[in-house]
């Protein structure tokens, strides 16, 4: 089955109010071309799940697409805090659920294994358990000791970006896998962008690096630089200069409008052009 589609076709299939899981981790291999298209769409009240979020969550908050965020972390790592996330958290303009790295994984895994919850000791003794409205402290049926029941997270859609894919929807991840496999398996519909499409025969040569199986993917988009400004090892490193510009732009309303018009409300092709084109990106970001 040929699952190729355009970025806009992917966005068309994402329902307002939908629960959207996003792969990658902070400033690494976020499906930013898909996220930007979503950010400039008219979708509303999206409920976002991220394990470790970064520019993805922040941008969607910045353009007002988000109704709720389920997260273990949202930040720009060494660059600092995520500005729109910080503002939204402090002004309570949208709903937030603080989870943790493993509990997000466990929630997705519960959805995959079609069980209502997964047990864990993580968050016992912390305030995460106090403020998280979804977790439930229960008693282990064998020992009566306390344990936390993490409910299943059932995304409507997962968005991920990979190094290579074939048109059938198999995907190769060469750097760290983060939680992309869990997102892809747990979601009803998984859409994947890739740096490059390969033939299925070529793809099989990557063996166990073929981490996304086609039975889980609904659509594939070829989008070179599709993770930019986050990194996509080993193809390119994080564009920290762009992220610094992003942080500066987010500091003022005017700056943000300028950023939006240059880098969000344009299509992926124009986005790359506005960075000086692929040649310029190669010279700066190719390691």
């Amino acid at each position, binding site marked *: 089955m040929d699952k190729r589609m355009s970025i806009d076709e992917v966005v068309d299939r994402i329902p307002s109010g939908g629960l959207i899981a996003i792969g990658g*981790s902070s400033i690494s291999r976020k499906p930013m071309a898909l996220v930007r298209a979503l950010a400039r769409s008219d979708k509303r009240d999206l409920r976002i799940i991220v394990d470790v979020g970064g520019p993805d969550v922040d941008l969607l908050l910045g353009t007002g697409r988000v109704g709720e965020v389920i997260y*273990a972390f949202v930040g720009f790592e060494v660059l600092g805090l995520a500005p729109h996330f910080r503002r939204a*958290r402090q002004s309570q303009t949208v709903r937030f659920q603080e989870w943790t790295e493993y509990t997000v*994984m466990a929630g997705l895994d519960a959805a995959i294994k079609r069980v209502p919850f997964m047990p864990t000791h993580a*968050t016992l*003794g912390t305030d995460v358990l106090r403020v998280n409205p979804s977790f439930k402290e229960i008693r282990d049926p064998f020992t009566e000791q306390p344990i936390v029941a993490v409910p299943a997270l059932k995304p409507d859609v997962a968005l991920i970006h990979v190094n290579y894919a074939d048109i059938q929807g198999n995907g190769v991840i060469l750097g*760290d896998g983060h939680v992309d496999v869990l997102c892809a398996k747990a979601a009803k519909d998984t859409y994947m962008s890739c740096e490059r499409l390969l033939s299925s025969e070529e793809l099989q040569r990557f063996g166990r690096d073929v981490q996304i199986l086609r039975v889980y993917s609904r659509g594939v988009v070829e989008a070179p630089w599709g993770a930019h400004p986050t990194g996509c090892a*080993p193809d390119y490193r994080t564009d*920290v200069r762009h992220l610094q510009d992003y942080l500066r732009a987010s500091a003022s309303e005017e700056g943000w409008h300028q950023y939006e018009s240059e880098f969000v409300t344009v299509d992926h092709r124009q986005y790359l052009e506005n960075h000086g084109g692929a040649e310029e990106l190669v010279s700066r970001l190719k*390691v």
Partner: protein
Amino acid sequence: MPIDPQLNVDEVIITTMARQLSGEMLVSSVTAFGSLAAHLAKRRYAPDLAVLSTPESGMDVTPMPTLTLGQFLTDVQQGIPLTMEDIFDAIFTDHFRIWINPSQIDQYGNTNITCIGDWYRPKVALVGARGIPEDTSHLSETFYYILNHSPRAVVARVDFKSGAGNGESRHGLDSHGAPSVLVTDLGVFDFTGPDGTMAVRSLHPGVTVEEVQQRTGFPVYVPGGEIPLTELPSPEDVRIIRDADPLEVRKLELMSGPEAAEKFVAIYERERQALHATYPRVGKFGR
């Protein structure tokens, strides 16, 4: 800088951190200090450590601090790729160590990276608990460091418990995950005070108990007898640190404002060349 001016505080702290590591453990890090401590420990103090070059992958390679979390080193040095599931399995089975750099730590060793103020209406929203709840419910040794020991960072009571310390936080948890050691720019602390509270273990040269009390948000417990001096880095320790971090990414964590921004840009521009020089295989997957 309270330390002997011939010694750099970063090198004293990193060496002290390195000396706490032991055994055959995966050592992960999301900071330059953490990765340099792991690297130094492996070379000098704990040869069986399995050091990761990214927060989740690249086992048994030489970590080199980079701005983008070492993703590229994994590729060029090979190493053994792991998954996020591997990382959390290692945490749960206590085969994992990490140096955590919290925004706040309190007298019981509770730690906070989530928010300043009330979670529901934070004065400052930080990043979210990430994987700290998993660490503080499962690891037999949990390590913290803080680079600027102050009453705002070392507090009587954290605003939010991202990580579980001693005292009431231990209810429902066994001793796994209890705080072990805190290293700061003033000294080394453990949690052997009354009811598992923070106690002075050693002070860096030139630091007095008075200064510690002054820069701490609560009265730190001082055990009887003479307080030992922190053992200083040997020339070999210093050489290993400097060789492993020629771009001085570690210095970034000590800076702020324009100084940090300038350093950051300088490192970013040089990072790629440094990688190419060290690892000629870099870029092999490039188009």
